[in-house]
């Protein structure tokens, strides 16, 4: 190995260490008893290791319930947002009609507005809908918030599909919906995968909106429940990080499985994780 190459490897490894150390330390702390979490010098390997944090999170706390809430909200929002976005993207890509560009531009405007800017009027809207402090209240606004980006992403993909297949199916007498459902959607699978992953992660991790509208513990999602473990003083760090590990495991699993789609999604447009 040339010296330049080994130097490069060392630099990369050093950087990677800085990236990963906080995670490893978090993992280690999740196995520590409360009296050891802020001990000096810090323990990198918990001694004695304990499973009590996980036991309390998994068996005695309501975290199973919060996990189910998060999963329910993320899966439903993702399914709805991706389906509705795919339909819109197909409508914009496959048909020519007056006002098309105007509508699409309006959608792009939604892409530029930071989500937090709308939180006050959206709160009033949710109140008017009667969905404050409910999972549907989360789902509706998560779907709405993810439409613009996904439509933008998928429209490009649908436009790149060859029109001949569509025409052939049309000659065979297939209607608009069948051409969308059994031709365009299966062909767009890679783009749909990208859209699904990003929407799932965004909704799984969402914090501000849930913090705003959820008030009763039984409707909490994981980010809220974890943030609320932060006591005014004397935070139970072992507990916090056991819960955090459980919350990020699905994310890491999804990320490792679909890595390839991440790169595609990032380069396709303005996606920020």
């Amino acid at each position, binding site marked *: 190995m040339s010296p330049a190459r080994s130097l490069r490897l060392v630099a990369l490894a050093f950087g990677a260490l800085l990236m990963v150390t906080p995670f490893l330390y978090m993992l280690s702390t999740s196995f520590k008893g409360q009296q050891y979490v802020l001990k000096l010098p810090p323990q990198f390997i918990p001694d004695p290791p304990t499973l009590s944090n996980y036991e309390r999170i998994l068996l005695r706390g309501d975290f199973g319930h919060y996990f189910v809430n998060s999963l329910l909200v993320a899966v439903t929002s993702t399914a709805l947002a991706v389906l509705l976005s795919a339909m819109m993207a197909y409508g914009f890509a496959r048909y020519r009609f007056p006002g098309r560009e105007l*509508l699409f531009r309006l959608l792009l405007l939604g892409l530029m507005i930071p989500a937090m800017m709308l939180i006050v009027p959206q709160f009033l809207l949710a109140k008017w809908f009667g969905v404050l402090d409910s999972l549907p209240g989360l789902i509706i606004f998560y779907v709405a918030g993810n439409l613009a980006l996904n439509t933008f992403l998928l429209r490009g993909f649908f436009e790149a599909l060859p029109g001949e297949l569509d025409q052939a199916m049309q000659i065979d007498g297939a209607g608009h919906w069948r051409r969308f459902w059994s031709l365009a959607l299966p062909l767009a699978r890679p783009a749909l995968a990208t859209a699904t992953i990003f929407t799932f992660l965004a909704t799984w991790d969402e914090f501000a909106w849930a913090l705003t509208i959820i008030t009763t513990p039984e409707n909490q999602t994981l980010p809220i429940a974890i943030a609320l473990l932060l006591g005014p003083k004397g935070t139970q760090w072992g507990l916090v990080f056991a819960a955090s590990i459980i919350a990020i495991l699905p994310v890491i699993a999804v990320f490792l499985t679909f890595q390839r789609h991440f790169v595609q999604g990032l380069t396709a447009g303005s996606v920020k994780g």
Partner: protein
Amino acid sequence: MTDLVRDASGPKLARHPQRVSRQAGGAMKLWRTWLPPALFIAPGFLIFLVCIVYPMLQAAQMSLFDWKLVAGATSNFLGFDNYIRAFNDPRFWLALSNSGIYMAFTVPPQIILGLGVALLLKDKSPAQPLFRVLYYLPVVTSWVVVSLLFKYLFADRGLINFALDDLLGATDKISWLADRWTALVAICALGVWKGIGWSMMIFLAALQGVPKELEEAAVIDGANRWQRFLAVTVPAIWPATIFVTIMLVIGGFNVFASVLVMTNGGPGGATEVLLTYMYRQAFEFLDFGYGSALAVILTLIVFALSALQLTLFRNPEATPSARRAVR
């Protein structure tokens, strides 16, 4: 939706060969022009209009009122009073400067370090996928979790103080989160740590688009590494750099969860950023009108900065092929 009906040019693929009288044909054609796309677009677009566009307009409207949340109470029209109030509010300026500081100390490091890692990683090697995953891991982890993690690392008896004490021999313990400047350092450190992987990923993709022939030609011409970087790589990744910069600036002004979790704007409001200040005005003091005015100001700042960057960064040397690199 009604403007879809006005014109009658047929949809690209939706024409069936049918014989109909001219008059009925017009109506049928009209019907066929807008109905199929409308059925595809309407469900999602209606949600978008109700939950995004309408609140956008309402935010602008609310910012002109002393908005009363209580049912029955009348909201007074204030005109631009909420904006004038912001202008005279020292806490607003403090929050604005904190947001600006956050931006200034997170955007350049993310670009430089992200590009640096991407340059080191761009050649295919057995270790490349592993490094890519490790650098990207913080990006996919939720803000709440990493903010708690950094709060723990920067605690008085935390790992950072231990490392400074033990490795660098600093004797004074720093109460990182108890002072404005050190707390901002901790918050910025989190922002950079979490964001490097994202800009690395964008730059990695852009570097794939650097034309190989140009690189080889530059080698033949005797250009050294640095000259090749400036003459070949930089123009090719310029569009990606613009994209990354704009997104990071927008992201910098959107910092919220990390501040809320790490310092909650404290001590005494000293680390409040625009979004936490806006959020507090609206949901703690229930001053929805003032909160909306702050939201509108922030939106205008973000738009103005994006437009400014687009004009500043326009590079005449960027070739068409370079521009394509980021697409």
